[in-house]
């Protein structure tokens, strides 16, 4: 099978994730959409690694996963803190740059 199929799939997933970030107001859903975009990029990395017979792409995908894990931990902590003070998880409510 032509590996370009995987690349096109990753483009589609990336675009859907970007649309989630742009359209949804719920901070959690927007955050999950960012995760989807990272995953789509990972799929492209793995596909290119196999296409060119070079393992570096898989290593980069691995590091993306680790950084995504760290990002999720901090991001969710921020969302929980904002929810505690504002009783809302909407991105529009946190507009004053203060708690």
């Amino acid at each position, binding site marked *: *099978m032509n590996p370009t199929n995987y690349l096109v*799939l990753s483009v589609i997933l990336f675009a859907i994730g970007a649309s989630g970030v742009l359209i949804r107001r719920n901070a959690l859903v927007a955050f999950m959409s960012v995760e*989807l975009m990272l995953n789509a990029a990972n799929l492209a990395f793995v596909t290119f690694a196999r296409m060119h017979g070079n393992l570096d792409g898989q290593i980069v995908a691995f590091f993306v996963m680790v950084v995504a894990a760290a990002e999720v931990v901090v991001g969710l902590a921020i969302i929980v803190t904002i929810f505690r003070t504002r009783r809302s998880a909407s991105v529009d409510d946190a507009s004053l740059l203060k708690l």
Partner: protein
Amino acid sequence: MGEAALFWIMAPIAVLGALGLVFSRKAVHGALCLAATMVSLALFYIAQEAPFLGVVQIVVYTGAIMMLFLFVIMLVGVDSSDSRVETIRGQRVAATLAILGVVLLLSAVTIRATLPEEPAGLAQASPDGNVPAIADLIFGTYFWAFEVVAALLITAAVGAMTLTHRERIFHRPTQKELSIKRFSEGPPEEAAGLPVPGVYARHNAVDTPALLPDGTPSEASINRVLVARGAARSSDEFRHHPTPADVEAAAEGETDEPAGQIGADDDARGGERA
């Protein structure tokens, strides 16, 4: 052949999961859709000679990250759904157009680019298998990146703890102090604690009020929040409704025996019924 079948089955599932994330009203449904997408991506990794990444994807993403998301959704409230009001007018239309542009541009680039028709494969790059080859790279070429990422993870864990930590402003009362307070301030019938909710022979749940000795449901036995939400159940169906035979037997028992014996009599009849 097998890979093509896997791709054409799992790719629609992945895309549907991603669409479900964007279009579901409730965050919980979105999280579950995203989990489906991530599992199908893990299968793609395994199909593309990256078994290590496939397993890490399932363990880290679907196992840890999505569960973390679900926990936070539960903290924030499962029912928290989006408002449909557009804050910036025309934002959705503009976003849709931009996304279509991104899809067209990127897929045109990937389709028209001169890429090898058949993948080179990783047999040459990883002669001893996938995991030893990745270990060679991580602990060799990318050693410093690996160390920095370890420092990043520790920083993130400390940061999350600092962000969510709350100082206790008031002194937390101990069990002893609470007990003293109950006896000195509360009504005397509550001094020994409130009645426990819903313990019946056929049912045991916190949303069903306990029955007092005279057969009336006790308001004090269930949480006030449940009552306010309208989630409390009636304990009526678990109550013993005496049949005419029971009433007769009780009447006989009352005439024959002194009042102190009624409890024992009840027990005996209960045994017969059972």
